[in-house]
Structures are given as C-alpha cells and as structure tokens.
C-alpha cells in the first residue's frame, strides 16, 4: 500500500531555512541530465540593442532577428548561426516551438518565424515544425515532438511572481491552476514529465519591453514596461530566468525608488534548481555573456 503523501507546511520552510532540504522531504528526484546540465556552469547570453524598440508596441523586426542570430552564435561558439542550429537540431527532429500569446505582451511573431526559418535551414521539414501556446496539449506535432524550443517575453505574474521560461510549459498540463500554490513553486515538476524531459534545445527569454510590475485584473499597464531592448538565450531555462529575474528586480527598485520585491516571490526559479534539478539559478553557477548595448543593463 502506498504511503500517504506528507503535508508540506510553512513550518517546514521555517524549520529547514533552505529549500534544498525540501526536495528530499517531498521525495522528489533531482534531474541532473536535464536541459540545464546543472552539474556544470550554465552559459547564458544577454544581448541588447537600443534600436530594436522605441517602447511598448514598437519593434524593429530586422534588428531583433539579427540579435537572435548573434545570441545563438555566441551561445554555441560557432562561426555563424546556421552552424549553431546544426548543433541544436537534426533534420529528422519534430520540433514544437512553445510560444506565448498573452495579448498585452506576446512573443513577437517575427521571432517565432525566425526560429521556424532557422529550423528549416537546419534541415527540419516544414511539416515537422509547429508554433503553439494554448493548444499544445492537442497539437499533433507537439505530441510527436523530439525537440522543443521555448520562447516567451518576461513579465511579472499574478500567481508565480514572474512569467518565466519555466512557467511557459504550464500549458503542457491539463490543470494549470493546480500549480498555483505557494507562488507556483512546483512548476519544475512539469519539466520532469516524460513528454517534456530532455527535449528542450533552446530557451529564449524576450526582454524587448518587459513588464516589471502588474496591476488590475489584467495585470498589465504599459507604464510598467520599458524599452530594455534585450534577449536572453540559453539551453538552461533556470539560468535564463534567474538572469531575467535579477533585471526585473533591479528595474523595480530603480523605478519605485526603494527595494520593491517581486510579489509573490518567484520561488519556482530557485526551486527548479534546488528541488527539481532542472538547471542553475545561482549567479556563481552561471556564465553570463553580455553583448551589445550596455547602458542601463541593470545586471
């Protein structure tokens, strides 16, 4: 007979003072061969260009795609982007591009198209590529996928503190709301599911006009976006999210003129590292490569 699940309470957190212990409390395995290969330093590229946007609602697609190609090239230390894509995918791969359609701040369509285009250039057939968000559960390409590309804009989020690359996979589960407890701390478990595990080849966190604070039922005001003009690219979603989170936090502090913690605290980023072994969240285990525009970089 299976042992009844132990209830985890706030006191467990108070008692341990560390979330590392929580993983063992919950009896969860650590995945050390997952996307982030967390036993090594994670490489993250942050690229910025002031010409990619003038602010919310404006986008120079050519600049964005050029930034994207540069970032992938730097990440994989290849002579050009095409060579990097040949390392990322094989012609026989079936690739789902997990995007984000949240209407106030969706993934830019030119970036989605550029990803699909680079996949095709690498030999993946058109029929083996699909771009989807809310329909991934019933999408035939995603169901058969051998590889995933994860792309979304960074924003604050009502339940999880931040809408991150890690959170972007919540649409792969049938009851997303069931992950909302304790600021969506368990999001990392989604990445452990067999149909997702080890499939993610690239994570792109769009920081063109990120949302650093949310208000109202829709959790959006363009007043709380700013033209950061960046992309964060990594094979490790945790490391990319951790870098993005530091930038959002710095922007909040700067904008509000005081320490204004992200609320709720985006516990899921650290938990994805320390409890679920998805990747690296700590700065000392992240190799951050900053390129392009450096002014007001906030990190």
């Amino acid at each position, binding site marked *: 007979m299976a042992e009844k699940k132990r209830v985890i309470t706030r006191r467990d957190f108070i008692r341990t003072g560390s979330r590392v212990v929580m993983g063992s409390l919950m009896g969860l395995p650590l995945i050390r061969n997952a996307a982030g290969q967390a036993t090594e330093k994670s490489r993250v590229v942050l690229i910025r260009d002031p010409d990619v946007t003038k602010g919310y609602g404006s986008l120079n697609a050519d600049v964005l795609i050029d930034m994207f190609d540069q970032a992938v090239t730097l990440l994989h230390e290849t002579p050009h982007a095409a060579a990097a894509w040949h390392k990322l995918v094989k012609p026989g791969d079936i690739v789902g591009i997990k995007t984000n359609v949240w209407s106030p701040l969706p993934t830019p369509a030119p970036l989605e198209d550029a990803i699909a285009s680079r996949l095709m250039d690498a030999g993946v057939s058109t029929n083996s590529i699909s771009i989807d968000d809310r329909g991934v559960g019933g999408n035939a390409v995603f169901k058969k996928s051998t590889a995933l590309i994860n792309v979304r804009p960074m924003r604050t989020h009502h*339940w999880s503190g931040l809408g991150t690359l890690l959170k972007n996979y919540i649409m792969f589960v049938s009851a997303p709301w069931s992950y909302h407890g304790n600021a969506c701390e368990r999001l990392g478990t989604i990445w452990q599911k067999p149909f997702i595990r080890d499939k993610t080849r690239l994570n792109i966190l769009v920081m063109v006009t990120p949302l650093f604070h949310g208000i109202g039922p829709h959790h959006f005001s363009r007043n709380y976006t700013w033209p950061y003009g960046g992309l964060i690219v990594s094979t490790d979603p945790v490391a990319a999210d951790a870098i993005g989170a530091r930038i959002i936090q710095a922007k909040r502090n700067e904008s509000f003129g005081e320490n204004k913690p992200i609320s709720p605290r985006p516990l899921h980023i650290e938990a994805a590292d320390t409890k679920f072994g998805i990747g690296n969240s700590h700065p000392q285990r992240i190799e951050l490569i900053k390129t392009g525009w450096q002014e007001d970089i906030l990190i």
Partner: protein
Amino acid sequence: MIRVLQTRAIPLCLALLILSVVTHLMTQATYADTLERLQQVLPKQLNTWAAELPDRIFDPTTIFSYIDGGAEVYKAYNMRKCLSRRYTAPNRPVIILDIFDMGSPQDAFGVFTHDSDGEVLDVGQNARFRPGWLSFWKSRYFVSIYAEEETEAGAKAVKELARKVAAAIPQEGARPNILRRLPSEGLLNDSIRYLHHPMVLNYHYYLADENILNISVETDAALARYQLGNQQALLLLVNYADAQSAAQSQASFLKHYLPDADSTGSALLENGKWAAVTRIDRLLAIVLEADGRQLAERLIKSINP
C-alpha cells in the same frame, strides 16, 4: 380529522412549492435585470472618450479567455458575470471598465481585499487608486477601471468614470459578518483579507500544500495583521458550518502545523515567532506569527463574541 388535515395539507404544500419556484425565478430575473439595468445607465460618453459598444459579457467559464492567469481569483469569489467596456478617444489612452457581479456584497468586498494597496478614494464602499488603475466595491459589484497609459487626463477620466459607476449602483452592501469577530485593538484595517478558498489564503500567507483547514465555499475566513506597541501578529479566523467541522479542522491544524502546541494551543516556532489556535464553537481562531506569546494569547482572548 386526519383525512381533512391531509386534504388541506396538499394544497398548502403545492402553494409552498409554487412560491418556492416563483421566488427562485424572481431571484434569477432580478439578478439579470439588475445587471442589465446597470449596463443601461453606464455612461456612453466620458469627456472626449466614447464607449466602444457593444460591451462584452463574460461568465465564469469565458472569463478565462478575457483575463489570463488572474481569472481564478474571481472564480474563487464566486464571480457570476463580468461586463467589460472600452472607452476610446483620439490621442488618449484606452480606458477599460470591468464590472464584476460577484453575487454578494461579501464576495465583492473579498475580491476587493485581494489587492487593496494604493491611495484611498471616497468612491463606492471602499476604493483604491494606483497609477493607471482604480478599483472599488459597492453592493455585490467589484469595479476595476484602468487606463492603458498613465496621463493626467486619463487619471481624471478614470476617477470621474468611477464616481459615475458608483452612483449608478443604488444600494450599498454589508461587509462579511466574520469581520465583526476581529478584535479592534491594534487591527491594521488595510491588511484585512476576506476569503473562502485555500488558494487565496496561500497567496496571502502560504500555510501548506494541502487544504489543512478545510477552507471551502462553506467557510468564511478573515486574515488580518495587528500591531500592538512594537509587536506584530497575523490573525486568521475561519467560520465553519458547524462546531464539528471546526473541531475537525482544529485537529487537522494541530496535527499538521502545530503538533508541538502546549495545553493552551500555543507553540514557539523555529523563527522565534509564536503561533496559537483555539476554537469558539464554529469559529477557529489562529494566530499565525506573533512577535511574542503574550500577544498571541491576548489576540486569542480578545476575539469578539
């Protein structure tokens, strides 16, 4: 004699049944009429802003297509319908008016307390204004108005619209009864949250990954912060349908959260704070984090009957 009574009882039962059905239908009709009536009297013009008609109406299912992510909050407070109207003007920010019919003043108040920071305004029964967003509650309605861009003219229009909508709602509603049980001394009024969903409790104060207090639509809960002198504490009250349910939840709390409680129901937590629990008939009172034992016990003892 018995036969006569039975004969008279049948039409009486029938009359009661008909009355019950009619009352039910009337309640539904009144609800629909009131929502429609409110919609009809909403301003179509607001200075240079004009309403973009038709309005959009969402129910508890379709609200997810309108509000991504946060819709669960409104469902957790039993949202019935949401009316959304956009106001547009040349070279002005779009103003979005959302009126949530929460079915009861208590739930309208509850959803208002979910996010109650900001500047206090005298609109409706309680109102708050933050840059770009105004919210208030009145009767069974929670109203949210926000401008897509913060401008002086936009902020002025948002406040004017709020006053007009509040005026269109004729009656006020009662706050939840459970709030009367909160001790008044040291109560930080802006910290009060009213809820009856464990997800909402966990949002404001993460307690456990399971619903150890059995919070549900059948329960009312209030969470509030206290400041007495230089000491603070957090008090949670949960009112159950009956004393037995309250006792079961008390036992569950003691088992999962305070197994080390002494005979008074108090325990020193590992972070140096005190927690305490007691039951008064159907009411469970829990001090979650108090800066001292005396404060925890004082709060427990001063719960209003």
